[in-house]
């Protein structure tokens, strides 16, 4: 069966699925969720039901459900629309998931910048509470304060505990030791907001939608150089080309497609000849990239890939939490090298050094942020290496000021909020 909109569709009867879920035992509900094989929409794509089954429900401690609404991945803006337009769909999903893991406390961690969305969500929570649907469950909306790393699940937990949001070593994993060291389920907004649909259709039917390895729909945030950027909810498996050209209207101003970063700025980019790939976890993995946050950044031929790499790396340097060595030191070193290349002061050996520094960060940092800084840059060097080399030979940027990212000022270039020692790279 084909599934059209689920997350962005107009709401039916609110909280209809909660009663259905509460009529089931937690075990039965978890079995249902596992059967649905809903894969996490936050990035890792880990099956939501399996995660629930890992919760240490035998523990004497309370169980917690935490919704990851930190959405800070450059290119991602889907959670925001779901919360702004259908907050009750998210809350309904929360109540169902909480029943599965026997949690009485639900926390929704929303990034601090989403002020308007927070107000909508908080109002919705209050309305829902007023209807009595919560029962003995409590929902608390917690505002972040501006730190991309707090989207990483364990950093999020530390932030929610009132600390510096730095990732924790795993193991122990949150289902065993999460918030306040108690068993904790963490899911992305879209993951949880999809849960009611699973109960509505039944796991069996739901599992038939999308593609076998990734059922259901996803909201794809598409931005950058397309005619109609925005969110499009499509079944998983939809070809990327269809999204870019049919839904988002293709590349504007008669420019040509140069690169697509398919999962938010943290994943390897694809070249124009790769965009027939179906948009699902496994197909993208086969191309050596990731589904990530289902957020496509489309880049046309006006963009200098060195500048793209530099701007991207400045972001990850700025957002590195500073806890682990490779990410903290490596991202800054990468920025220094990229600036040297962009300035035309580099040798070919500097490009090799950049690649090597990347390799030395990859897989060695405490959380994936280190990898996120490297994946895209490594892919730019791989596919557009000649453009990097041109900077060396040409003694400067071959675009000579015409690149779409020319002169872009990143926060790390001009800074006031960390007066103590913002380190210019």
């Amino acid at each position, binding site marked *: 069966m084909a599934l059209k909109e689920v997350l962005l569709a107009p709401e039916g009867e609110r909280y209809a699925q909660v009663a259905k879920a509460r009529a089931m035992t937690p075990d039965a509900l978890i079995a249902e969720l596992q059967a649905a094989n809903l894969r996490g929409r936050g990035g890792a794509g880990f099956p939501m039901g399996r995660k629930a089954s890992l919760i240490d429900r035998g523990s004497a401690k309370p169980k917690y459900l935490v919704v990851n609404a930190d959405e800070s991945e450059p290119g991602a803006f889907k959670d925001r629309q779901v919360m702004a337009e259908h907050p009750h769909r998210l809350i309904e999903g929360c109540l169902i998931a909480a029943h599965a893991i026997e949690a009485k406390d639900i926390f929704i961690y929303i990034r601090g910048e989403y002020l308007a969305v927070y107000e909508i969500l908080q109002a919705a929570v209050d309305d829902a509470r007023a209807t009595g649907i919560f029962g003995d469950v409590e929902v608390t909306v917690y505002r972040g304060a501006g730190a991309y790393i707090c989207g990483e699940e364990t950093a999020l937990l530390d932030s929610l505990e009132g600390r510096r949001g730095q990732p924790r*070593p795993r193991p122990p994993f949150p289902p065993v030791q999460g918030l306040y060291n108690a068993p904790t389920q963490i899911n992305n907004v879209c993951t949880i907001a999809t849960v009611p649909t699973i109960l509505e259709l039944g796991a069996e039917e739901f599992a038939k939608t999308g593609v076998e390895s990734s059922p259901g729909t996803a909201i794809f945030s598409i931005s950058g150089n397309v005619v109609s950027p925005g969110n499009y909810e499509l079944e998983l498996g939809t070809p990327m080309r269809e999204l870019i050209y049919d839904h988002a209207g293709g590349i504007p101003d008669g420019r040509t497609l140069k690169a697509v970063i398919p999962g938010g700025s943290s994943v390897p980019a694809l070249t124009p000849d790769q965009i027939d790939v179906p948009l699902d976890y496994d197909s993208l993995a086969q191309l050596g990239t990731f589904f990530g946050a289902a957020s496509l950044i489309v880049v046309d031929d006006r963009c200098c890939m060195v500048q793209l790499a530099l701007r991207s790396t400045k972001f990850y340097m700025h957002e*590195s939490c500073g806890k682990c*060595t490779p990410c903290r030191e490596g991202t800054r070193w990468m920025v220094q090298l990229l600036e040297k290349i962009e300035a035309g002061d580099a040798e070919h050996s500097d490009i090799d050094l950049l690649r090597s520094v990347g390799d030395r960060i990859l897989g060695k940092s405490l959380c994936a942020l280190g990898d996120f800084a490297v994946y895209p840059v490594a892919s730019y060097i791989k596919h557009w290496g000649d453009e990097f080399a041109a900077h060396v030979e040409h003694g400067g940027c071959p675009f000579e000021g015409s690149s779409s990212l020319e002169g872009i000022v990143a926060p790390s270039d001009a800074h006031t909020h960390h007066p*103590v*020692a913002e380190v210019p790279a």
Partner: protein
Amino acid sequence: MSAAETVTLTVDGVEVTVPKGIGLVEAALQAGIEIPVFCYEPRLGPPVGACRMCLCEVAPGPPKPQAACTLTAADGMVVKTAKTSAMAAEAQNATLEFILVNHPLDCPVCDKGGECPLQDLTFRYGPGNTRMEFQKRTFEKPIPISPTIALDRERCILCYRCTRFSESVAEDGQLVAVNRGASSMIATFEDEPYRAPFSGNVVELCPVGALTSTQYRFEARPWEIQQVPTVCGLCPVGCNISATTREGKVKRILSRNHPEVDEGWLCDKGRFAYSHLRADDRIEDPLRKVSAHRFEPLSWGDALDEVELLLRWAGSSIVTALSGGETVEQAYGLAKLLREGLGAHAAVMPEPVPDALDAFRAPLSAIRDAPAVVVLCDEPVVERAPVVDLWIRAARRNGARVLTEIPEERIDGVVLISDDADRCAWFARDLGAAAAYYLPRTPNGRGVVDAWSAASEGEPVDGEPKLMIVSRDLAAADPSVRALAERAEKVIGIGMFEASFRGLADLVLPATSYLERDGTTVNLEGRLQRQRRTVVGPCPDELAWIAKLAERFGVAVSPYASTTFEEVAGRCYGGISFADVSDQASLPARAESAAELAPPPSTRVAEGPGLRLVAYTPLFSGAAVERTPELAFLRPDGEIELAADDARARGIANGDAVTVRSNGTSRALRARIVRDLAPGVTRIPRDDAEGLHETVEVSK
């Protein structure tokens, strides 16, 4: 060990069987294999996996290097370190390259140079050259974060050991990391100093030269120094320490982890107060009083003759005030001379420890593992026995209940800590405590009492004393001792500093410090520990001239601590040998006691609106601290401790200026609200409490 409690894994092909639940770093060590670490330090709590120095290849597990420090040894695990895994070698080399990217090359002028883990690990696992050619991160350096500690942010590798100590061990929350990412740095609040009793431990924890001791700065190179193992003599805990000496001078005090006593932590008094050894008013020769407030030196020959004359003249009519700062051997030698030689049995002793407590003897580390800890102390634990405070905090972090009153219900395994000997003994029995610790006032009071009674039998004679002997500055500072001395015709002092004895003694013999003598002390657990002569003092060891004098009275006292110890041990310590107490002394077995105990008076609570005043002796006070300028900032500065409820009831907030009144006298102090202080009680340092009565009014 039964198979159930062990796991078997292989590290670099070596199969090891280790206790279940231990970390990979320890497991590898048992196989004789090093997994290099920076941030990993089990004493600081759960691993953080920050520095990435310990990356190894681990199966089962994801196909990338794993932070070994965060993993627990499991059956069938296959661990490969840099020795046998290219992946691990590459990862560790990468970590070091990244650490060095912003680490300055000032090793030649760095105090850590030569004893620096970063140097050592770079030598073993690091890159031979640098590929970094950009400007390194620069900071203003070094900045003093307190009079005792300097911080060099450029050298900092952000292992977060210091901040974890501050947050999770000392729990003072004063040393933190600020900012994010590459801008992260270690800091205190604004430009306030790191003012806390255990701050010095961060210097020892720092794996690089980022946190250094201002006292030790540029004082020595590692190859010029000796480390002499000994025991701190400044409080009854008796932390195990090493004295770093160079050219016969103590340059630094380091911890020497005794897992049962101190777990490798020291208070800042024990760590930094050593400079009092070289104070200007240190007594180096015997002194004779020439006028009310002046002494003149005299030769040892003359001094001993005068002492002999005074002793013969006074005969049995001598009162000896012992301070509890002597070694067992010094006290024993003196006691033997006076009691056996002159029948002078009268003595003022440090407070006695009821034998009944020996039935509740346990290592201090038992506090950490207790389900509940009852702290029956008027005086703050940290001021009397600092490291005990850390054990109590560790217990709380382990989930123990920490109570400041006698619990209604019975709690199995409860441990008791008290600063009142009789209450301690009584309630230890009453609660059926698993362990009980009395916190005495003096470092070796217990050993001194043992030694005195072991020396001989005999009752004091009645009547006013003709001669009084005041042993050590601690006793000379005691008002009751001074009062007694008033009544004696003559007074002989034995001490380190002139000021202590001015207007008190007619004759003063120089005393050694705990770092300058050989002998033993008994700590608050009842553990005999050996102090070593780490440097030669400006004067002979007391035991040497005590032996000479004793000879003149036909009493045999050996000038050697070892010989004297064996004599004492034979009489009261079951004949254990000097060797047994030398390196890491073990705790004597428990001794049951049938002694009848009298129920102690119930705690006095102030009647009326007033608060019960407890005047305490601050940790950072006394002769040694007064002679250590770097510690001046830690001395109490007119603070009064209030329980949260009492403060709220009076509308007093932390740091408010308050007036303390008790009939007639009033004093202006600053309020400090402390969490574990029983309501109705308030604490003021003894000096500030001068003239105040038991019950005080506190108002804004």
